């Protein structure tokens, strides 16, 4: 793919249930500098809605989401 999203850190939240993907994302985002991007992979089917709400509240934008099989992949930028 030519439009692959670049990222600075990767976080594996596979096989973790609510609320861990959100909590671990928050922790990981805190380690980045503003503008950097986190790639987070989750298998929690609820994480789609949860990550959108989290992003909306905290103001860290989700640049892109992908669904591959049962994996939800989020590219989140630190505000």
């Amino acid at each position, binding site marked *: 793919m030519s439009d692959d999203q670049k990222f600075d850190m990767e976080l594996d939240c596979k*096989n*973790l*249930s*609510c*609320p*861990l993907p*959100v*909590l671990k*994302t*928050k922790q990981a985002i805190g380690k980045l500098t503003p503008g950097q991007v986190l790639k987070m992979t989750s298998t*929690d089917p609820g994480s789609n809605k949860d990550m959108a*709400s*989290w992003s909306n*509240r*905290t103001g860290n934008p989700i640049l892109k989401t992908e669904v591959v099989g049962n994996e939800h992949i989020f590219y989140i930028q630190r505000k």
Partner: protein
Amino acid sequence: MAEERVKKMALIASQGTLDWAYPPFILASTAAAMEMEVAIFFTFYGLPLLKRKIDAKVSPQSNPAMPMKMPFGPKFFQNISWPMPNFLTGNAPGFESMATTMMKKTFKNKGVASVTELRDLCMEAGVKMIACQMTMDVFGFEKKDFIEGIEYGGAAMFIDFATDADIQMFI
């Protein structure tokens, strides 16, 4: 436009069984991750959730609608809900600890954090935990029984925080 102040959430945790231990810690850790200021007031049976070692159990007898499922075997087998007659859940010796073990195992299989892990995440995220001083005196708890980094107070202290809170819940 005035600068938006930090949102606040105030919880009361009044129950200490394993199933009721989850909601306050899940909500508090998540609200903190959503950059809210959070306080939990632990009172009555919720107070032991602040003990160094959480020994919360689940009581199927007081939760008649609780699905009883096996934490092992093929998926169809795990999805079966086993009907448990009330005389069994109430009278069979060791039923409560068996149900507790099974719930913990099922939660672990599904990638759910333990109550202790969630409590640690709350502490790391700066959730304010307040132990009810009156309950401590009534049930005979001492400060040395509890984890470090918590506060001690009463109803007025909680009301003071909750007055400015955007979310308040009694759990």
